[in-house]
């Protein structure tokens, strides 16, 4: 059983490193960073407590929001998905990403207290 899991994972990693373009890897690195940041914030909350709760929420939602927007960007700029996003060029995807982030930051800063 574990054998198959390990083999799946190693196969996945191999495919990933060879098949994905650099651009996407850059975005993936960014997503990984966001993930780590959010996880560490959550860990702090679990260990130390929720005070101040609004700040924790602001930080956590920021990570979650950024991750989601990053995922959207990755989907939209992936050339394999071009068929789904005929009207949206790469630049347009990036511009949307920036705009959404502006709104997200506004809300997060408002809430951070």
């Amino acid at each position, binding site marked *: 059983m574990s054998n198959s899991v390990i083999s799946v994972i190693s196969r996945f990693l191999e495919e990933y490193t060879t098949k994905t373009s650099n651009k996407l890897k850059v975005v993936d*690195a960014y997503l990984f960073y966001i993930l*780590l940041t959010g996880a*560490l914030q959550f860990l702090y909350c679990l260990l130390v407590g929720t*005070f101040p709760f609004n700040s924790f929420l602001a930080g956590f939602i920021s990570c979650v929001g950024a991750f989601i927007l990053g995922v959207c960007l990755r989907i939209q700029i992936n050339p394999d998905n071009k068929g789904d996003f005929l009207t949206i060029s790469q630049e347009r995807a*990036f511009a949307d990403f920036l705009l959404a982030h502006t709104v997200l930051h*506004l809300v997060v800063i408002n809430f951070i207290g």
Partner: protein
Amino acid sequence: MIYLYIIGVDMAQPRVFCLVLLTVALGAQALTPSHHLSLSDVDRLKGLLSQPFTDLASAYYSIVGLSKLGASVADENDACQFLKAQLDPMSVDSLFFAAEASQAIADCEMPVFNETRDILLAAVSEDSTVTQIFRAVSALSSLGLPLASQEVVAALVARIAKEDNVLAITTALQTATRLSQQAELGGILEEIEDLAARLDDLGGVYLQFEEGLEATALFVTAAYTLSDHADTEPPLKEDQVIQLVNSVFSKKSWDSRSEAFSVACAAAALSSNRFHVPVIVSTQGPATVSHSQPILHLLVTDILSNPLASANLLVESAQAVASKSVVLSQAPFSLRNGIFELNFMASQPASGYYQFTVAVTGDSRLVANQVELKVKVSTEVAVTNMDLSVVDKDQSIGTKTSRVDYPFKAKGSFTADSHQNFAMNFQLVDANTGVELTPHQTFVRFHNQKTGQEVVFVAEPDSKNLYKFELDTAERKSEFDSMSGTYVLHLIVGDATLENPILWNVADVVLKFLDEEAPAAIQSKTLYMPKPDIQHLFREPEKKPPTVVSNTFTALVLSPFLLLLILWFKLGANISNFSLSPSSVLFHVGHACMLGLMYVYWTHLNMFQTLKYLAIIGSLTFLAGNRMLAQKAVKRLASK
């Protein structure tokens, strides 16, 4: 109906407010006056009118007003000289005041000039005001000069049509009283009824003009004077007359001489006209009779508090309020020294309150001559058959009963502990008739001399009017705070109809309670002491984790950024494609500004300011970014 509530020992004069409320609340079958001028009020009125006068008008009000009340000015000769000196023979008003005032003084004649008559007659025309006509006509009549009544009537009728206000019509009525009886006064007489319709009814108690007291009083005077003069009964109903009386005589201190004058005239008119004379029936002191004072005294007067010459007072019925039985019927009062007396105790009434309906007869002019009074019959109470006993709860030991006589105290003290009850039986009887009484207040009071505790219970009568009181020591221990000790026992008996309320120290009772959990200090004493201060506790700030921990985690949270940079470096991400076109520079600068704005928002600004700046920077960044991305797209597509 007037209800004179006399409760207690005070109250010589009925309380106006109480009466008004009661009269309104109980409705009126026949209204009786709630206000009139008592002797002190009349004196006050005379006092106001007797003040020294400085001009003809005030002289007129004082002299004529006082004469209406049956008094006169201090120095009549002086007054006469004053009138003669102040007279201005060219002025109608001056002639009026002087002439009328001089008529009220004996042996005072005003000089009459040739021109006087012409001036006065000239004033009687359709072109003068009603007041002018009135003054001219009165002056002519007081000075004994001839005048043509029919012309006056014509002028008055014409003026009434033009001046349709209350004072003008009242003045016209007054004018008509000076004309000859052969003149056609019918039209003017009808004005009385029209004016009466303009009166405002206040709560069914008062009837007055909105123009005020003076106008109402002058109307009353004019209506009755004219009715007497024309020998026609005024079209005012009995209730209206009483309501007018209430309005005119409710005010007991008057603002001006003219107001006092109008009240004096109204009082004179109502006490001596040929048709309606309101009668006032009042008690002398509280309306209470008892064995020591068996006679009920009543005064029958007119509104000036003058006793009526020919009046007879009769009790139509006297009914007990409690039992509704009629005790007396059709009994006449006897007159002695101007006061009507009736020996009510001769009918042997039981103590309590009685509703009297009295009627004043003897004069057909009397108005409001049926009056309702509440009379109290009081008596003295005696406590008999007072038996004190300590009863064992399980009745195994016989009771120990001792008889105590009022006003002595029981010889020994009574002891009751938790197994026993303390009992008291007694009877309350009327000292004079021996009838059993049930007064309102029968209290049994226990007073602990040492601790100051006072516990009061109510003793209640049973069906045979025997009073019983039983103290269950165990059951009632909470009221005594379980304090054992000697309690002094008092019996308190009181009632409005009792002349001798009783406070009798009957005995000493030693009460023994089981558990002495009572605190040493008495609760009641601290009830009214200031309570302990409450210190306000400000909200404690929440517990924060130690700075070390938060600093550690801050570093930890920021560390993935380093990891990101390393990963990007490893992937080979670079900025070699960075074109230095103005739009891209502007875009990056604008974007950096937006991020800086976020920081400034966090530290300084509020949402509105931020949005404002964001709009500016954002639009610039957008335009630049749009340009830059378009260029990039073009480049990308070209390189494909």
